[in-house]
């Protein structure tokens, strides 16, 4: 087990390092002169020079890179050009919206999808199965931002139950704050749920065909019990993996959804930063987001090993 863990951690570190290198290359080296990019063509020469000095652009590449990484490790993510506040502050502010949104979306999609997948598998080739599969197909095909617009039309414009956008702020109270997050959560959860339901169903059907299920039946285990007690845990293993891997898609979805609903979260921040050409924010935020995805994938890998005893590196008798 410890060998497995060590290998995984090494891979993690390498991937993270690689990520920093690529981001650095793309966002600092590739544009040639980040300063003029940020300030625009019409900027004056002195302003440009001042910015260059402030950003340390005159130093050699390797020094710039390593000082960036060192700063990162100390939690210093630079200062935003547009807002003149530390990037880390911005992130903390915005995460108060993005994190609850992401968590709620994950919970919602899991709560919908896994039972649906189980229902479909236990009613294989019967109407319920067909219904679940159709839902899944639709859920995958519908762009989540369009779904969001449809939700807004129905629930904000026609029914007026929830606001059409914006965030009331946590200070306004948990109730109003959550109300602003309901539609975004649903919109974000939909494509995830669709994929998850399909994967759950498929995985369960595969497991139900295995030999050990037949053995269970031979012991007198009923169909129902075989599914819940024997098949499910085996079937959930690949499902959990998929859930983890879906995180990067969740991230992409969150960026779009936050923009649809004008939620001041990380997604909106990065988008605004690009529009404002605030390369410092973009650079560091992209890194944070990418690192999160990589970390989550790592966690999923480890979880996988925990659930499946075969991967724990047990002895062979």
């Amino acid at each position, binding site marked *: 087990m410890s060998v497995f863990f060590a290998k995984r951690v090494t*891979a993690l570190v*390498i*991937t993270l390092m*690689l*990520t920093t290198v*690529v*981001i650095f290359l*793309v*966002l600092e080296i*590739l*544009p040639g002169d980040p300063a003029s*990019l940020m300030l625009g063509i019409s900027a004056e020469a002195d302003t440009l020079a001042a910015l260059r000095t402030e950003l340390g652009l005159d130093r050699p590449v390797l020094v710039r890179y390593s000082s960036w990484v060192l700063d990162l490790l100390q939690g210093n993510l630079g200062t935003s050009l547009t807002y003149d506040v530390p990037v880390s502050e911005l992130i903390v502010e915005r995460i108060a919206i993005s994190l609850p949104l992401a968590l709620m979306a994950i919970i919602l999609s899991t709560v919908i999808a896994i039972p649906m997948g189980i229902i479909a598998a236990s009613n*294989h080739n019967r109407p319920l199965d067909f219904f679940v599969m159709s839902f899944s*197909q*639709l859920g*995958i*095909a*519908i*762009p989540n*931002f*369009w779904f969001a*617009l*449809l939700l*807004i*039309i129905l629930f904000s*414009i026609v029914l007026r139950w929830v606001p*059409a956008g914006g965030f009331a702020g946590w200070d306004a109270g948990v109730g109003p704050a959550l109300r602003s997050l309901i539609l975004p959560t649903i919109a974000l959860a939909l494509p995830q749920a669709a994929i998850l339901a399909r994967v759950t*169903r*498929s995985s369960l*059907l*595969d497991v139900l065909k295995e030999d050990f299920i037949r053995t269970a039946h031979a012991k007198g285990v009923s169909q129902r019990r075989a599914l819940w007690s024997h098949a499910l845990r085996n079937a959930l293993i690949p499902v959990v993996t998929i859930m983890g*891997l879906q995180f*990067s*898609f969740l*991230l*992409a979805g969150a*960026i*779009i959804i936050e*923009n*649809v609903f004008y939620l001041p979260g990380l997604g909106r921040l*990065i*988008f605004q*930063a*690009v529009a404002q*050409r605030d*390369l410092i924010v*973009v650079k560091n935020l*992209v890194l944070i*987001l*990418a690192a999160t*995805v*990589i970390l989550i*994938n790592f966690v999923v890998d480890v979880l996988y090993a925990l659930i499946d005893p075969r991967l724990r590196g047990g002895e062979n008798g």
Partner: protein
Amino acid sequence: MAKRFSEIFRHGLKNRSFVIGGLITLLFFLIALLSYIWTPHAVEDLSIVNKLRLPDSTYWLGTDHFGRDIFSMLIVGARNSVIVAFVAIGIGAGIGVPLGLTAAARKGWVDEVIMRFNDFTFAFPAIISAIMITAILGPGAINSIIAIGIFNIPVFARVSRGAALSIWKRDFILAARSAGKGSFKISLEHVLPNIFSMLIVQTTIQFALGILAEAGLSYLGLGTQPPAPSWGKMLNEAQTMLYLAPQLAIYPGVAIALTVLGLNLFGDGLRDVLDPKLRRNR
């Protein structure tokens, strides 16, 4: 070769997903092609006087808030989606498949490196890449093509590697190796033709995903720029008119959903036809 096609076609006609998906996909491509020759109205025609008309004989789906014909915009948007998704697949497959084949052929540290590279690229969904590229290059259709293409690479690499690995285990490969054939030639002449059907299926999936990604990017303003119409941009503009004219949000969304659905169904049906041995849970 032609015989194989007709065989696949015949089997396909018996498969519901193949037929329905295939028809929708065909329709989509035809419409996209058609837009090059003819559109009911020119999409650049702004006519404020005619804004927000409901569907009638002149404007089949009505007009938007600038008086542009929605139907014409939709079909030109289709063309746009096709091009973006298509080139992105070209990039993804063009780089990804050789990578995957190499990883499967060489194994050892080459395989490890390619797999790490894959993992790492997976951390960058098209949006993030698009954001990075836009940050330095400014927005544009090329950016979305590159961004989506970059994300396609690890997908194709992983699929071709996986499929290639199982082909490498087969006896006829062993025979070729004993005869002294190098792994490059084997990959090209033996492995590639055998994984071809899997790649085709994956292409339809990535095509669908590409259309969704393109729509998302142009919705955000990161992809295709005005005045070129794109489905995503139409939805973005529709959002500003949501209270006044909610119908503007319906059409582009239906177009996207229908096309993606068609492609997915077609891909599913194709997979069933090409690899019935897979015996998936349909």
